[in-house]
């Protein structure tokens, strides 16, 4: 990579040295087109974020494309039920590759308040990889804007050799669950859904040591 000293030196003489990777990421970062995909109450906060007062347009992200083919960010805004899960995964598969997912609201992350229901999927990351999680029920429109800024930081930090879409071995077709007799089959996609082996039980002693 270009060392910073040389870069700042050149910048003084007005020469901007930019790596293609930075250029790619800048292009993707500053024009994220979300898929028009609202499920429940969080969708209304998403529309409020695109409305006059919070104005998603300033980030160049107000072009809500209705077809998955032209969208590159899927904001899962609302409760993903088991009846809707196959559609969500199929939509994600249909999106062209440099694609990101924001799980907006408690329901999308973990089933939220409706977690105990028989028809509610406990979190959309059982089937598709999620980049940014926004807790809240519903999260304020500013929280969505903060999440988009966090996603932009994540995009600028991406390196070509580590991303999923340039890696030939990575799976592009996530298996679509089937609505079975009692539940979705399979209950989760093991490749994407890896809960941690242990639960870091931070008791008081550890907390005092850490803080």
């Amino acid at each position: 990579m270009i060392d910073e000293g040389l870069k700042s030196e050149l910048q003084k003489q007005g020469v901007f040295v930019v790596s293609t990777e930075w250029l790619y990421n800048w292009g993707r970062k500053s024009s994220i087109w979300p898929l028009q995909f609202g499920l429940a109450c969080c969708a209304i906060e998403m529309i409020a974020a695109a409305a006059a007062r919070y104005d998603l347009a300033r980030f160049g992200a107000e072009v809500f494309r209705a077809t998955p083919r032209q969208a590159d960010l899927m904001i899962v805004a609302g409760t993903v039920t088991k009846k809707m899960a196959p559609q969500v995964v199929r939509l994600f598969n249909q999106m062209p590759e440099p694609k990101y997912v924001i799980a907006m609201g408690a329901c999308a992350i973990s089933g939220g308040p409706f977690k105990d229901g028989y028809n509610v999927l406990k979190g959309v990351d059982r089937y598709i990889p999620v980049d940014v999680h926004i807790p809240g029920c519903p999260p304020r429109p500013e929280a969505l804007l903060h999440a988009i800024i966090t996603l932009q930081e994540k995009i600028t930090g991406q390196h070509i050799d580590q991303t999923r879409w340039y890696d030939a071995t990575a799976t592009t077709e996530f298996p679509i669950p089937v609505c079975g007799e009692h539940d979705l089959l399979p209950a989760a996609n093991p490749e994407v859904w890896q809960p941690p082996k242990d639960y870091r039980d931070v008791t008081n002693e550890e907390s005092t040591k850490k803080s």
Partner: protein
Amino acid sequence: MNYPGKGLVEGLAVTARNFVGSYFYKDRLTTVQYPEERIQTPENSRTFPFLVFDESPDKPRCTACKICEVECPPKCIYIVMDRDDKGKPLQRPKAFDIDISVCMQCQICVEVCPFESIKMDNDYEKSKYGRFNDLVQRLPDLLKSNDYYRQIKPVKAAEVDAKLKAEAEAKAAKKAAAVAAAAAKAAATPPAGSAT
């Protein structure tokens, strides 16, 4: 005068007024540019709960009575009572987890808490990359000082402090009365004792 395209032209006039107005009038351009300018959220605004402590983080007001854990509709609070080595419960939580990926921000825990120890924060910038251990707020993340609470919700904090002070005085007065009564009883019994 009602010419055929009247409705269409009036519509254009409205959008033109908004377009031109957005350069001059404040109410025609209501955008608050989020990261630089921020909306002053009202005092009652609530996002996620946090625990209040008075002097030091080791002595939170919470006594691990688990009322909020029972009353929480989505059941996103998990409390473990702190016990000393002999197993006697110390009135303090050993672990107090709130899974903010399940919390529905309904502040019922604040209403039912008898010790005024759990309050609602108004910080909404909590989007994270990881899901599992990032979105579970444990005791160290939850504990915030009373003056932080006084800073974000001045009026409510003042009420709560006044109530707590009143209770403290009432208890102190009762204890004093109890001590006085005990002293009076002690004073009354020795004369009886000596009299016999």
